[in-house]
């Protein structure tokens, strides 16, 4: 079999890349190692509305579990910071359907989709990618192609195969566990976030509502001595409104928070989404970033196809463009995350007290310095970094 491009991984990044390529008339094969696209879910499923709108995706009610209008953020001592309002609206998705629909959109655009198909190696000749070795059921076969999109998640094999350093340091990898819980008392349109060393060291705990009494309850931790699952059980037991819920699903996974990998392209290969660590280091969110980079990868590869040049120099354009699109947002989040890391629980409480007394969104530097005269310099430095 022969085609122009093979996209490895049918998550949001891979499907958007395949869709973009197919729309421009290229012959694309989208492969997914799981039998069914979107399952198992490895996500807390929250995303912003603006991003999806900007990408021009057909929004189906089926893949939206609920609409949110911001978050209640709780500091370690329980101080509430209200970050809600129209400008913070977002969706909690039903990822198992969302991912499937994105793959369907790619298929409708003309891409061939194959599930239960595992890319176990690349065919590399003269330092250029010539094809992908695939395995479906027990059959092994080679698909010849001109370039490969590696959208194969945090465990990215494609990146590693061509010598890109996709490894994440242990200290920069959050270990996450989440239960889908039913029969709990949640605000239908407000997300809850909990910070603190006791709750989730190096990360945070979340309650993302998916309906009246159903929510994704999870947390991410780093550099802790217990597993994420243990922390999650403790967290749920410590919260009155969650304690009596029933668990209807378990999701686990890692979220890299070190910022994007140094190099996201190579001869005939571009990396998209989690494989390139296109994850917001502060929130751990990556749906929009992966989709946006998938589109950019598609556009760059089409241009490369027109020039028939898939060399490293030609694909460097991909990195340039995604940096223009999401680079500064990622770097900003990285800075805030690094600032946050240096603060202890007591300082977080002080920050929460300051923020809770202000209307979020309309804060300026003067307000903060006025209120925070008694705060330690580290806290002030962090707050200034936020603005």
């Amino acid at each position, binding site marked *: 079999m022969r085609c122009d491009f093979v996209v490895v991984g049918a998550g949001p990044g891979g499907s958007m890349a395949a869709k973009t390529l197919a729309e421009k008339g290229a012959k694309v094969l989208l492969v997914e190692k799981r039998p069914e696209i979107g399952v198992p879910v490895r996500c807390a499923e929250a995303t912003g509305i603006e991003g999806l709108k900007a990408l021009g995706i057909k929004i189906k009610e089926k893949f939206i579990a609920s609409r949110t209008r911001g978050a209640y953020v709780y500091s370690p001592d329980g101080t509430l910071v209200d970050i809600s309002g129209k400008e913070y609206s977002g969706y909690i998705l039903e990822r198992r359907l969302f991912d499937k629909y994105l793959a369907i959109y790619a298929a409708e655009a003309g891409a061939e989709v194959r599930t239960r198909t595992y890319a176990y190696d690349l065919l590399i000749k003269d330092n250029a990618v010539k094809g992908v070795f695939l395995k479906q059921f027990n059959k092994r076969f080679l698909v010849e192609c001109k370039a490969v999109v590696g959208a194969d998640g945090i465990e990215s094999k494609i990146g590693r195969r061509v010598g890109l350093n996709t490894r994440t*340091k242990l200290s920069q*990898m959050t270990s996450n566990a989440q239960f889908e819980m039913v029969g709990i008392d949640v605000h239908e349109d407000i997300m809850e976030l909990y910070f603190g060393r006791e709750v989730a060291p190096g990360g945070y705990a979340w309650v993302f509502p998916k309906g009246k009494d159903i929510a994704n309850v999870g947390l991410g931790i780093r550099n802790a001595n217990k597993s994420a699952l243990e922390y999650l059980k403790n967290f749920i037991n410590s919260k009155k409104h969650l304690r009596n819920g029933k668990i209807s699903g378990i999701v686990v996974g890692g979220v890299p928070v070190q910022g994007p990998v140094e190099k996201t392209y190579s001869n005939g290969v571009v990396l998209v989404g989690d494989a390139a660590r296109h994850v917001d280091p502060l929130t751990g969110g990556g749906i929009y970033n992966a989709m946006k980079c998938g589109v950019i990868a598609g556009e760059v590869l089409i241009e490369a196809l027109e020039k028939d040049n898939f060399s490293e120099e030609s694909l460097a354009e991909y990195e340039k463009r995604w940096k223009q699109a999401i680079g500064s947002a990622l770097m900003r989040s990285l800075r805030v995350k690094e600032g946050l890391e240096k603060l202890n629980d007591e300082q977080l409480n002080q920050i929460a007290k300051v923020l809770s007394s202000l209307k979020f969104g309309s804060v300026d530097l003067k307000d903060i310095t006025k209120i925070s005269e008694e705060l330690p310099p580290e806290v002030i430095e962090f707050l200034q970094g936020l603005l």
Partner: protein
Amino acid sequence: MEKFLWCILLLAKLMKISKACCYCGTCVAVCPSNALELCDCESVVVNEKLCIKCKACEKACPVGAIRV
């Protein structure tokens, strides 16, 4: 008998991935020596020759399924 004991010792030294594993790939992403690989959907393959016993995978595993 001696051979048998050696086998047991050797097995005890090997890395263990328990059935708690959910194949999320977190261990693969943090392994500094590329000793781990997520194959197909449901197997984590360990290359014992490459493993440097740093325990990064053990610490990163969200469900505590790995013992090094």
